[in-house]
């Protein structure tokens, strides 16, 4: 038996199901019925899959490597932070420029031009045409 990423994923799924079932046991029957009916078989299936994974006979998917995944997820987290601090309208051009210039290694001229185009399109569509009310960031006038 060997511990693999796939096995850990199945174990995490079993843990989620177990948590759902244990939590639902404390609720009235009306509220508990569906989580129990879904959670118990999910727990069993995840356990079976965990055994299959740890015996090393499961076929894995064809996803890209962790490095790219962590990179993209880190940029996403950075964008959320920008929106939180500065609000969408300011975060959009900063993010586009930052990603193109740093991660994409594009020239500063192209990065600036595309960031401005993105900001212009965003402004025209959401603010001028649809009048969509984006909240300001905590540093630009919005509260928490």
């Amino acid at each position, binding site marked *: 038996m060997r511990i693999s990423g796939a096995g850990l994923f199945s174990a995490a799924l079993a843990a989620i199901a177990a948590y759902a079932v244990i939590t639902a046991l404390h609720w*009235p029957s009306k509220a508990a019925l569906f989580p129990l009916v879904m959670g118990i078989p*999910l727990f069993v299936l995840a356990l079976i899959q965990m055994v299959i994974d740890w015996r090393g006979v499961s076929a*894995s*998917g064809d*996803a890209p490597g962790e490095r790219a995944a962590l990179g*993209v*997820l880190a940029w996403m987290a950075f964008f959320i932070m920008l929106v939180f601090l500065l609000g969408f309208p300011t975060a959009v051009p900063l*993010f586009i420029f930052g990603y193109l210039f740093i991660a994409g290694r594009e020239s500063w001229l192209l990065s600036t031009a595309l960031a401005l185009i993105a900001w212009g399109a965003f402004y025209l569509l959401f603010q001028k045409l*649809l009048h969509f009310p984006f909240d300001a960031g905590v540093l630009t006038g919005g509260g928490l």
Partner: protein
Amino acid sequence: MIEAALQGLSLVLQWNAFSLMLVGMALGFVVGLLPGIGGAATLALMLPFVFKMTPVEAFAFLLGMHSVAATTGDITSILFGVPGEALSAATVVDGHPMAKNGEAARALGAALMSSLVGAVIGAAALAVSIPIVRPLVLTFGSPELFMVTVMGIACITSLSGQGTSAQLKGFAMGLLGLLLANIGQERQSGILRFDFGLIYIWEGLDLIPVLVGIFAIPEIIDLAARGTAIAGNAPATRLGAGVWEGIKDTFRHFWLVVRCSAVGVLVGILPGAGGGVAQWMAYAHAVQSAKDTADRERFGKGDVRGVLGPGAANNSKEGGDLIPTIAFGVPGSGAMAILLGAFLIMGLHPGPDMLTKHLAVTYSMVWTLVIANVITVVACLALLPYLAMVTRIRGSLIIPFLLLLVFVGSYTANRQLADLVVTLGFGAAGYLMMRFGWPRAPLVLGFVLGKLAETYLFISMARYGYAWLAQPLVLVLMALTALIIVLPYLQERRTHAN
């Protein structure tokens, strides 16, 4: 009736109504590309503009916008793997792999042409069925609607791939989706389930951040890892020829398109069945229509039939949705509930009046659905070679714009910053699912249907006790559900026997 139909056509073709329809279509085209601001949200945003319009102008404007948004939602699904509409995600499953194989134009051609056929079938159903559909709609109470959702859930078997392990993973993901739908306040008892003390979760998880995270983020990660364009190093087919190939595919598999359109109409007619289920049921039907196991294995890897089925159902559903809305004032979906508001603003009362006094207005809606879709498809076909070229732009240039599309889409649904965090979380989960070979489609199907299933089950139990299990239509639907579950296994056994 024919006279009213012709009168409806002439009303739509009048300069004012026609130009407003074009304005609505232009708006629908843009917002259809954005996840989050879907057809329903756009209808709500544009409702205040119809006050000064005549009924025909208002419905030309609103329905033109709504039907185009449903069509163009498929474009981002295919090109980038980002569902343009929350309920049109099934096109991603085979459409985006086609784009990665260098067949974006073919996939787009197939999606648009099947959408057009679906829209025409939906409109025809609307035109002929209003007088006769009343018994069907009235027959469907909570027990029958519960069984329809169970039928949708049973489609998991077709979305899970071949083999015992794949089926096990598919069912587990379907159950996880159903469990996720339980998050938030329970409607009968008011108990907060899995809320972790967060007010944000009280209403449950929103579909759009979950959907966009699960489907779009893993594709963006894939693009970043490959370091190439979306179409990678796939041989560049002649883009224009690819479009025509997609159009021809629609007619090569014409009966599949017709059957999937019928699925869309039927799901649309049933108020409360949920628009999301139509596309997935159509996709599942397309998978089940495969000749044998080897043929089924092509799905999910870029099979054009996986684009044709959802494309057709997505648009035929609009005609189906309108039937109970117009005939009884019972909206079949969120968008139709908003449209009902437009009826009241116009001083129209859905019901018998729409079939007698205002029959010409009703037919003008039918014609709007048809004309708006024809114009959209013709305009898109002219643009498709250029749209498909997007798949040849290098990944590093396109990734920040895709991330922007994903986040703006997630945020605009509810204006909640927490939705962005949910998108990130489900993006990471979607990546892990892809990495370890867990199918994503069953999770989405379970999530879409979970709340509906629970609600209808409780109403059925409260109203009928266990007696609802013996109702004739429930038994028929149970048999159909069993058939949906068993059919793939029977197909597999037949293949092995051969």
